[in-house]
């Protein structure tokens, strides 16, 4: 050993310290960046003392996978919940003021009052007015449900666009990482970028990753479809122009394979896309079916029947009618009937109709008139309506609610179905959000920056720097002493 090698070692130490200080200051400056992983300068020993060999980036694949999983599940559940919240909003607040159930209740009460005073033409008018409110309410609700589907469809398009853009950026980041790894450079910044993109991608679609040789990452969807392998696979989606009860939305294709929708209120959706698909293709259409069934049941309940001794004429729409203008036969849902559901113009005073026809019948001709003498206090038909609203009738079992119940209970059941799903989705969303939060927290604790630790390391580096500097000056003095002897 010679003084020169001691000087070399001290110099190396100085250079190490400056590299380490650089790392510390980078760590501190990124302390509040959630996508930043802590760096560490790994030292190795050689003949000249310690030398910085590599910059290590803190990683924990298991926790990172948890984070990604948590993000997907929370984001899918959140998409479903906000869809359900929007649908619930259609039916009013805590009292469900604008729900068919509430408006039908009001109509029933008015009809009941009208039945006790059938001669009052103001009551005839207010009954028809209530019926108009109900019809408009059902129509509006149907339109609003389809609007929810359209908005969701547009949101899917936006998310697919964003996903494709993220995948393109992922390709760049991944290429940088693999190239950097081959060249043996510091790829930490690129890996941060890549992880950050992966987190964003996992919010849109559930993914799993495989890291291959050369630090190359391939992404697969939760269903196993390839999303990224060296190059991004195309995610395609054709948005629909408009929605109606009979219009099906288009599927999202990942590399040509259709993406499945989430199932259940405690949704299986991984990522917002599946949650949105579930709202568009499952929840909103179910509510539409309920509205269609309510509309159909009301047309049937208020239909006019042939009053002749031997009835030969078919039933005709009475108080309520629709674009088809017939009374639908059988307990089968008529898709989209709610969209054209309306009060018969023959009863609306503003359209030249006569509201008193509600009491007697006969909108469709004299054969349907139950009160041919025009007796003012004829209440049998009105009372029959009030009773019929409460009488069980047949509903399409395909609608998922009770197949035999009264129309007013069916309307209430429909709300029950919606609220059951919303309630479950809400509690599932809370627990998934909590899971995501904990996963992110655990990952951040493991890979994030602690300023305290960096500061204490800085103190250590300061000491080491001072010691090295002192060493150099001592060696300098020793060399000086040596030189003076020689001189």
């Amino acid at each position, binding site marked *: 050993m010679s003084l020169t090698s001691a000087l070399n070692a001290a110099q190396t130490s100085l250079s190490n310290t400056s590299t380490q200080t650089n790392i510390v200051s980078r760590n501190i400056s990124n302390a509040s960046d959630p996508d930043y992983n802590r760096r560490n300068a790994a030292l190795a020993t050689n003949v000249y003392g310690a030398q910085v060999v590599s910059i290590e980036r803190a990683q924990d694949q298991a926790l990172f996978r948890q984070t990604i999983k948590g993000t997907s599940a929370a984001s899918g559940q959140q998409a479903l919940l906000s869809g359900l919240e929007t649908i619930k909003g259609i039916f009013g607040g805590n009292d469900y003021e604008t729900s068919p159930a*509430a408006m039908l209740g009001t109509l029933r009460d008015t009809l009941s009052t009208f039945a006790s005073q059938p001669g009052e033409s103001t009551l005839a008018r207010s009954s028809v007015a209530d019926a108009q409110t109900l019809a408009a309410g059902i129509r509006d609700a149907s339109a609003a449900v389809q609007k929810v589907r359209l908005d969701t469809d547009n949101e899917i398009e936006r998310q697919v666009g964003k996903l494709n853009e993220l995948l393109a950026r992922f390709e760049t980041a991944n290429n940088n990482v693999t190239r950097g790894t081959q060249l043996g450079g510091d790829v930490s910044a690129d890996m941060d970028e890549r992880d950050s993109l992966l987190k964003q991608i996992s919010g849109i679609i559930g993914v799993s990753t495989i890291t291959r040789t050369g630090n190359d990452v391939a992404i697969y969807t939760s269903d196993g479809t390839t999303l990224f392998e060296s190059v991004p696979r195309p995610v395609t989606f054709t948005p629909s122009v408009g929605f109606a009860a009979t219009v099906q939305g288009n599927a999202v294709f990942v590399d040509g394979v259709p993406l499945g929708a989430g199932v259940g209120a405690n949704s299986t959706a991984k990522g917002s896309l599946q949650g949105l698909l579930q709202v568009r293709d499952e929840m909103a259409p179910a509510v539409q079916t309920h509205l269609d069934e309510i509309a159909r049941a009301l047309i049937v309940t208020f239909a006019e029947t042939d009053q002749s001794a031997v009835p030969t004429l078919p039933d005709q729409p009475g108080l309520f009618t629709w674009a088809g203008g017939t009374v639908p036969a059988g307990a089968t849902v008529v898709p989209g009937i709610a969209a054209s559901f309306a009060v018969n113009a023959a009863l609306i005073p503003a359209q030249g109709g006569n509201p008193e026809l509600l009491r007697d019948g006969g909108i469709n001709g004299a054969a349907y008139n139950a009160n041919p003498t025009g007796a003012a206090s004829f209440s049998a038909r009105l009372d029959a309506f009030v009773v019929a609203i409460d009488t069980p009738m047949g509903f399409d079992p395909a609608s998922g609610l009770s197949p035999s119940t009264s129309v007013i209970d069916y309307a209430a059941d429909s709300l029950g179905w919606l609220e059951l799903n919303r309630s479950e989705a809400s509690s599932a969303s809370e627990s998934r959000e909590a899971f995501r939060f904990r996963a992110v*927290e655990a990952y951040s604790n493991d890979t994030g920056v602690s300023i305290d630790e960096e500061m204490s390391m800085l103190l250590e580096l300061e000491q080491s720097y001072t010691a090295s500097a002192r060493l150099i000056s001592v060696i300098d003095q020793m060399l000086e002493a040596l030189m003076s002897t020689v001189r």
Partner: protein
Amino acid sequence: MKTSFISNLAMNNAMRMTIARGQLEIQQLQKEAVTGRHADIGIALGAQTSSSVSLGRDLARMNTILDSNALVSQRLGTSQLALEAMSNSAQQMLETFIVANGANDAPKLSVMQRDVQAALETFTAAGNTSVNGEYLFAGINSDVKPLEEYTVAGSTPKAAFDATFLGHFGFAQTDPAAAGITVAQMDNFITNVLEPTFMGTDWNTNWSSASDTNITSRIRNGEVVESGTNSNSLGMRSFALAAVIGMELLTAPVTSEVREAANARAIEYSGQAVTGIDNQRSLLGVSENRVSKADVALESQIKILKLHINDIEGVDPYEASTRVNSLLAQVETSYALTARIQRLSLMNYL
């Protein structure tokens, strides 16, 4: 070497979720403490929301029926008053006929005629009583005045009687030829000619425009009562028949035997009128009783429903306010802790 297992980011975020949750819950609990109901019924009840909605509708329906029952009670009560007046005038007419029995002199007969006419007018007026624009005794035909007036000029029933008499005997009842009518002839006329015009369908043409169908009202779910009666009842027909005999036949220039026989029939019909009208009163009384029982039942049902709805939708406001207080303390602790943790840094000691 990594020695710590906490990152600054995680530390700063740690309290965030607690605070956000706490604030959200405070807002909801405040609402609950004030309204006494769940802040979001759908989330709280889930599928049970449907029964909450149904119960609310049922409650509204019962209140509506209660309101319309008040109307029914009013109609029934007024009908009772009118029927009482009719019954009283039938009784007076009966007494008039009994007093007039055997009277043949003109002044007594004219007093009798005046009394019978007064009774008939009272009867007609009572029969044409209306409430809220509905004629009470018209059956369901409630927008038409049910009883024709006999004593006004151009009266339909008067003309019909005159025609019937003339058609049978060949001369008017005021004609002196009436003195030739025998007791048997008069009896035959009353029983076989006059009575059928009152008891048969002619009644509906000449006297009454009422419908035979009575107004019915639903006074409770599943209970419908007749909430009115009509002027086609046996009692009302008999009243009119007795009055017509009294006013037309007893004052006709007939022999005293014939008059006595006619008076006997008038007494008989007046008796039938009293019984018939009292019968109607008791029928309406039954309806009145059912309405008041239905009201009692409805009111107790409403109370039970309200309790039930409160069980489902309600929250304990005391519990809610207690929870608000403890949550406020919790959130304040979070704030204090967050602030202190933020201050906790090695930097302060270097």
